């Protein structure tokens, strides 16, 4: 008995290969700017202006990073201060957004009260207009409140457009947590608050984390309000602070790229660590229980 083992001939799958090529191009398109940013940050000012460009610097240097991270020089002092300011504003915005959005979203999800639908869409109304429309009115308001040149002005402003999104996201999440779980807890003697705290909150953790990330990234990258409300260097956040690499007739490209890379690190790390929760939170909305 012959034991011929014939390898099944695999036909060329054009769709599969086409998809792979497309994804590879997409990957290059996505990764190239980041890679170029990193490579430029390792160059000297002169090398960054070479054409054709040096794909890898002939004299790579970390001096742009050491300059930014060295608190003994003025550039380092300013950069670290901007970094800390951004971290403080983004974290405070995120915490406040979650503290307010969690009960608000729960209320919109579970309670039936007059004007519920109207109020829910009214909350979203703020996000239907371009941010620039509110710029001068908010500036005047902050001025009246004595908040110009303070981080309070930014935190308050970021909440006005971060909260609606947070409430909207979390409401979708609560809608998908079966109410029977809470009812069971109530039958077992839990108060409504206990049922919320011990049953709903743990189940909604992915949603809260996803909301926090959106809120944090929004505040971390925000430029136009920070640009308008802050003129003092000791208050500036990173997106505004890195403007110092541009001057009237020249740009410090390697310094700018190093600062931008450093600026992107917390967001990328944050996202990578918590991406599982984001995916889960987004997927929750797609299934009806």
């Amino acid at each position, binding site marked *: 008995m012959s034991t011929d083992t014939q390898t099944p001939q695999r036909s060329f799958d054009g769709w599969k290969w086409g998809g792979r090529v497309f994804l590879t191009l997409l990957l290059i398109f996505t990764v190239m700017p980041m890679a170029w940013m990193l490579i430029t940050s390792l160059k000297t000012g002169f*090398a960054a202006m070479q*054409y054709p460009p040096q794909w890898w610097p*002939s004299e790579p240097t970390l001096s742009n990073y050491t300059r930014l991270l060295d608190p003994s020089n003025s*550039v380092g002092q300013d950069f670290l201060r901007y970094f800390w300011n951004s971290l403080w504003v983004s974290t405070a915005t995120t915490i406040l957004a979650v503290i307010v959005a969690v009960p608000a979203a729960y209320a919109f999800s579970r309670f039936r009260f007059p004007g519920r639908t109207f109020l829910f869409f009214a909350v979203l109304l703020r996000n239907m207009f371009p941010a620039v429309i509110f710029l001068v009115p908010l500036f005047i308001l902050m001025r009246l409140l004595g908040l110009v040149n303070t981080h309070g002005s930014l935190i308050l402003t970021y909440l006005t457009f971060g909260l609606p999104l947070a409430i909207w996201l979390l409401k979708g999440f609560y809608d998908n947590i079966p109410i029977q779980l809470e009812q069971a807890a109530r039958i077992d003697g839990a108060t409504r608050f206990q049922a919320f705290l011990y049953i709903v909150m743990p189940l909604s953790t992915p949603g809260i984390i996803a909301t926090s990330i959106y809120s944090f990234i929004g505040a971390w990258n925000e430029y136009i309000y920070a640009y*308008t409300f802050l*003129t003092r260097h000791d208050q500036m956040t990173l997106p505004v602070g890195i403007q110092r690499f541009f*001057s*009237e007739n020249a740009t410090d490209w390697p310094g700018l790229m190093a600062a931008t890379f450093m600026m992107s690190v917390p967001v990328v790390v944050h996202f990578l660590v918590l991406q599982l929760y984001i995916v889960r939170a987004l997927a929750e909305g797609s299934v009806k229980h």
Partner: protein
Amino acid sequence: MTNMQGRHRRPGSPLRRQVFAYSIALAATVPLLSSTAFAQAVDVSKWSPDYIRSIAGTETFDTAGQCGSVVPNDYSGRVSYWYTGPFEADPQIAHDQDKAFWEAFKAAYPNIQTDVQSITYNELLDKFRTALLGNAAPMVVRLQILGGVEFAAKGYLNPLKPEDVGYASADFWPGALKSVTWEGESYGIPTNNETMGFIWNAKIFADAGLDPEKPPATWDDVVAYSKQIHDKLGIAGYGLVAKQNAGNTPFRFMPEVWAYGGGALDEASANPTYETVEINSEGTKKALQTAVDMYVRDKSVPTSALTNTQAENQAPFIAGQLAMMIAHPAEYAKMLDLASKATGADKEMADAVVENMRYGLIPEGPARRAVVFGGSNIHVVQPEYVEGGQVDEQAVKALICMWTSPEWSTKLSWVGSNPGHLGGFKTEWMKERLDTIKFLDVTTSMLPNGIPFPVLPEAPEIMNIIVPDMLQNALTGAMTVDEAADDAAQKIEALRGGGL
């Protein structure tokens, strides 16, 4: 800057007391002002590189003492100030001089508290506008040369002239003083004035068969040189920039327009009235035609010229891919700074680039040799728009006196400009600058060819939007040269009539 707090008083403000106190201070200082005012520092009619060299280092100034006679050195007060200081991309010496100024001011006026914010060039105007709307502006602001007109016209600025801080108007360029004058009243003092020069790569010129030491003498030569360089070497000849809504574009295109006898309005005439629109004159059309010839016909300028600012020209120039361009003095200083910081193989290349850099006068045209008269002016804001609603007049004067002095107007414009106070040209520091910054010779000698943009609140719109739009319309072929010029003329007329 007379009685600056008395113009728009607020109910309940402690204005009367201040006016009384300032009146006493003013009465005490007026005789000093007249005795300390400088005589005309420089004979502008003799202006030439040799004359500038001959006067440099011939006079010494005691800045703290001079300003002390305007505002006593023991005066106690507070001043807030916004300006564009040195940032990361600026050469180290600019940082050093800026630091030295604030140390000198502290030494001269130890009891004046300063609240200083250095804001980048591109942000300053926007931030200042917003701050004015929210009554959160600083007491003193330094703006680009035509930035102040808009605010003077809207009533945000206090009258201010050189005599208010102990100097004579004759010690400043007439063109610079014109740029701070609105409806016959002066609203600022020039801090620095500069013109650009022409820079080229001698090696590229030689490789293209041109005389490496001889720049194009006329704008027609620029077109011919650019074509020859492109045809022989395949690289860009002239660094045309035509980006919309960018100040770099008119700063490089208007000199050519004026050289051919054109203009946006009649700003190039001896006594401009800004009443006649000349953007569709024959001169302007000729200049526009040369841009079209280089971009469309010869393809001898960067393809990306439509979206390029001058910053995008620097890299190809340094890399030997662009032969010539109009350059700001600061750009030359920046290239030297970059070369000095390069290491290893880069260092060799950088030194070669510097070695091949040449600089000369901006080419002339059939009508004249022209360049944009640039610079900055210092202004005082009306108290009601200032944070806290008050302006400390004496502290403000002390700061402005120091900043616009021959000494500091020279030192603070070390690499990028020239002293606003003409006395600065006589200082030892001017001599040092002339000895160390080669390009300076050229840019200082271009000063008499400087033409200020129209002193109108609409000037930024005309120069930064309408002129680049005209260029874009012609270069992209959306319109013919005639159509683009006529379209621009209609827009300017509509703008002047309040219709845009």
